[in-house]
């Protein structure tokens, strides 16, 4: 009885298929999650925007120093406990890709601490897509209105951006997410 042999052709086919499979898998994290294995060593606007954020914080207490109760009231960010609870719930899936705490890491998306009033695409080391880099060069600012517009139509406003979630169609939900960012990302 002859010993079976693993022919050169079979080896080439199987090992070639394995290499091809691996090459396809290298693309998958980008295809599914919009993540890239790259970072920038510097951002032209980060230092300037970080300094502005520090100035804004002079009048605003750090998040750790205020309780949820301080955020609720007639002249405060949230009108009721229920609205605050709903805002937390609305933002919960944003947290999959974004952190909001000061100095926290970028996840798939950039850290959003101090985003309101900050220049678009200006976080240090985060690798922005071309449309965000152009907006940064154009001096666009994340105002509450700009954020609302972006959450409503992210692909139209910044084509090619890597945010994989669907547009937030509910205006009330968009407003609560923005309030959350105001309250928790200062």
């Amino acid at each position, binding site marked *: *009885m002859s010993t079976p042999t693993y022919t050169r052709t079979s*080896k080439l086919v199987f090992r070639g298929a394995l290499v091809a499979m691996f090459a396809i*898998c290298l693309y998958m994290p980008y295809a599914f*999650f919009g993540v890239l*294995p790259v970072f920038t060593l510097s951002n032209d606007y980060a230092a300037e925007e970080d300094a502005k954020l520090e100035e804004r914080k002079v009048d605003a207490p750090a998040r750790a120093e205020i309780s949820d109760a301080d955020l609720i009231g007639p002249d405060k960010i949230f009108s009721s406990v229920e609205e605050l609870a709903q805002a937390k719930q609305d933002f*919960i899936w944003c947290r999959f890709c974004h952190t909001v705490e000061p100095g926290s890491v970028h996840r798939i998306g950039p850290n959003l601490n101090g985003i309101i009033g900050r220049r678009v695409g200006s976080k240090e080391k985060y690798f922005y897509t071309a449309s965000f880099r152009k907006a940064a060069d154009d001096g666009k600012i994340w105002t509450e209105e700009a954020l609302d517009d972006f959450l409503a139509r992210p692909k139209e406003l910044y084509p090619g951006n890597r945010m994989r979630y669907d547009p937030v169609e509910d205006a009330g939900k968009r407003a609560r997410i923005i309030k959350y960012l105001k309250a928790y990302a200062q």
Partner: protein
Amino acid sequence: MSEMPVPGTHASSHAAARDSALGWLLFIVACNILYIATQIPETAVGSPGREVVDKMHVSWGITALVLVVVRLYFWWRSPPLAPDPNMPGWCWGLAKDMSLAFYAGILIEGVVGPMRAWGEGYEVAAFGFALPALFPPIYEVRVVGGYFHSAVSFFVLAILPVGVAGALVASWRSKVPFYRLFPV
């Protein structure tokens, strides 16, 4: 009395049983990790559920790393594989290549995973026993490590069904039991 070679597996019945058990243990652990990984996007960051999923992912990941290091040690040190003479050469070759790719994928995951975690400042612990961090949080390591950890997990995810399918075909062609053909 010396042990007889077992066709379709390794040079001795003892080694065959050991390697087969290790391979199947790894297969089960890998399936478990992949299932846990699918639960990560289903649980919100900061929620108690997410913390449990993260801890289980890391714990089973380290378990897989230990198992694969042992399996690859025996792969390297064991006598050469002895294919069943009735089996077409390509079947045995496919079984070996798929298994080795599977083990290599698990090994890479086990090395890159902790690097990615330490890069982000996460604790790497297996069932409560924490490993000392080898370096402080480094964003660049976290970004590159995270991407490749994800990419290789897709590769392992692809290898498992392809390996099982290849083994089923080989088993049908050679009459060698399926469980001896993937992982080998």
